[in-house]
């Protein structure tokens, strides 16, 4: 079974909000209707967004790190927001695991937003229905787009490639590799919602050089380092001279 998801690399996210704006740009222009803003140029602008980037400071001065944290619906594998919906407007797609809201069925009771522990759903004050990230479901299968374009808008916009997209149930996919090899984790595991989106932790950036990268392992004479090094000014040629 397919479970499409995002894997977000906190190690490379620079907090530029490109995913926020590209998400809004794509999704406010779609067939599902605009993501309406209130007071966009006034004192307290507010509006519907599917994606937010937040910033946290970890540690104590002077040993602090700034962590930028993109936040959108995690398309939980066992989504607590779905069974509570009284109308069936909220549902999880069998074929690809995307959690969606049917805006034509939603009565705007907001119960699902109470049932999402992450606060990933936002009520649209103009359309009076509940909204949330669709994983750009209207891009993913569009035959008029190229393969490259059939990805969520935020993934394409990210200038640092902090956002990976793919099927986390396919063990050979790039996202599965990233989760396995870079220590991908889920948010708030204590509630058992099993979010499909994963985050990759911050990593210490170190230069890793193995011994055989310094001394050539393919030296046919296997004598690297045994013979005296030629002087700096002397000519040298691989496999002809010793160095």
């Amino acid at each position, binding site marked *: 079974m397919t479970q499409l998801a995002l894997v977000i690399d906190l190690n490379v996210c620079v907090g530029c*909000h490109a995913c926020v704006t590209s998400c809004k740009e794509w999704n406010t222009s779609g067939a599902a209707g605009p993501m309406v803003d209130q*007071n966009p140029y006034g*004192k*307290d*602008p*507010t*509006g*519907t*967004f599917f994606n*937010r*980037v*937040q*910033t*946290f*400071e*970890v*540690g*104590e001065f002077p040993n602090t790190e*700034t*962590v930028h*944290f993109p*936040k959108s619906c995690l398309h939980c594998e066992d989504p*607590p927001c*779905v*069974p*509570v*919906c*009284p*109308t*069936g*407007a909220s549902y999880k797609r069998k074929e690809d695991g995307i959690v969606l809201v049917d805006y034509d*069925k*939603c*009565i*705007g*009771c*907001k*119960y699902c*937003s*109470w*049932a*999402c*522990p*992450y*606060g990933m*759903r*936002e*009520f649209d004050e103009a*359309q*009076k*229905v509940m909204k949330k990230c669709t994983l750009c479901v209207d891009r993913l299968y569009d035959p008029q787009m190229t393969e490259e374009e059939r990805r969520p808008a935020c993934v394409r916009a990210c200038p640092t490639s902090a956002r990976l997209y793919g099927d986390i149930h396919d063990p050979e996919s790039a996202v599965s590799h990233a989760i396995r090899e870079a220590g991908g*984790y*889920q*948010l*708030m595991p*204590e*509630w058992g919602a099993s979010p499909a989106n994963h*985050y990759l*932790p*911050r990593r210490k950036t170190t230069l890793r050089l193995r011994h055989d990268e310094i001394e050539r392992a393919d030296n046919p004479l296997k004598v690297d380092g045994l013979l005296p090094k030629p002087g700096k000014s002397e000519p040298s040629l691989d496999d002809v001279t010793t160095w």
Partner: protein
Amino acid sequence: MHPAFSVIFLTTLIGVGQGLFLALFTAQTYALFDLLPQQDSHAFYAHGSILALLFLIGGLIASFFHLGRPERAWRSATQWRTSWLSREVIVLPAFMGMVFLYGLAHFFECKPVLATLPSGIAIDLTVVIGTIAWLLAFALYVCTGMIYACLRFLREWYSSLTVINYILLGGASGFTLATVFAAVAAPELVRFFAGWAIIITLLGLVSRVASLIRNARLKPKSTLQTAIGIKHPKIVQKTQGFMGGSFNTREFFHGRSAAFLRSIKWIFLLTAFVVPVLLLATGLSGVAATELLLLAFVVQYLGLMAERWFFFAQANHPQNLYYQAIG
């Protein structure tokens, strides 16, 4: 959570309506076994049912103000397999229908005997309808309570005490109203209803205080560490990503000070429980002035509105961890 007045009115009004019906039917059951004097079908049961229906209709109207798209409300009856909200949407009109039929049967004195107990007690149509409505009244309390009690990460609500409170507090206000109603329509029942109203109110006090104590001891399961998955003891949010507020900052914060919350707690403990019990006690003593009983009901109802406000405001949603700082 941000307390919405539509939901406060909905839950308190239907609580009264259900409680009043339970009181009426309790009186009828007692009378059936000759423990209380028989009452006039028309003046007592029919009018009482109308009163209960008025409260239920009031609650139903209030609920529509909570919906963004009330014109689609019918859809909310479809997911009863999984959603307690959907179950409530089904049980509420079913209960209202049965109360209506109950009142109607009493109004037209349409009471054909359907069965006779071995002891010679006749079970007529109103008893059968009343029993069904009685079951639905409890089902409705359970549905209303479970809407909140089933959300596992709203830990202030995730407890059987939530459901018990909805039953007891709704029942208490309904029996208090029944006392007022009896003072007008059937004075010989005032002591009966006042006695039960006091008992249920005191039981409600016990269970509500129990839930207050439980909630005071809760330790949050989610922390900033689990929210963003970074295992450092010291994390502060620098910005929530926007400045002008969003649904998340409006829906999940009550926006009042801790002192305000504390004073509401003491206000509702006094007005929903202590004051009504004292006023109802005048009804027990037999010197009941209808005005005092009416005052008991009004004070208790306002107290329960404060209680419901507090119930919502106290619940601390884990999503609030993500919305701490504007920067």
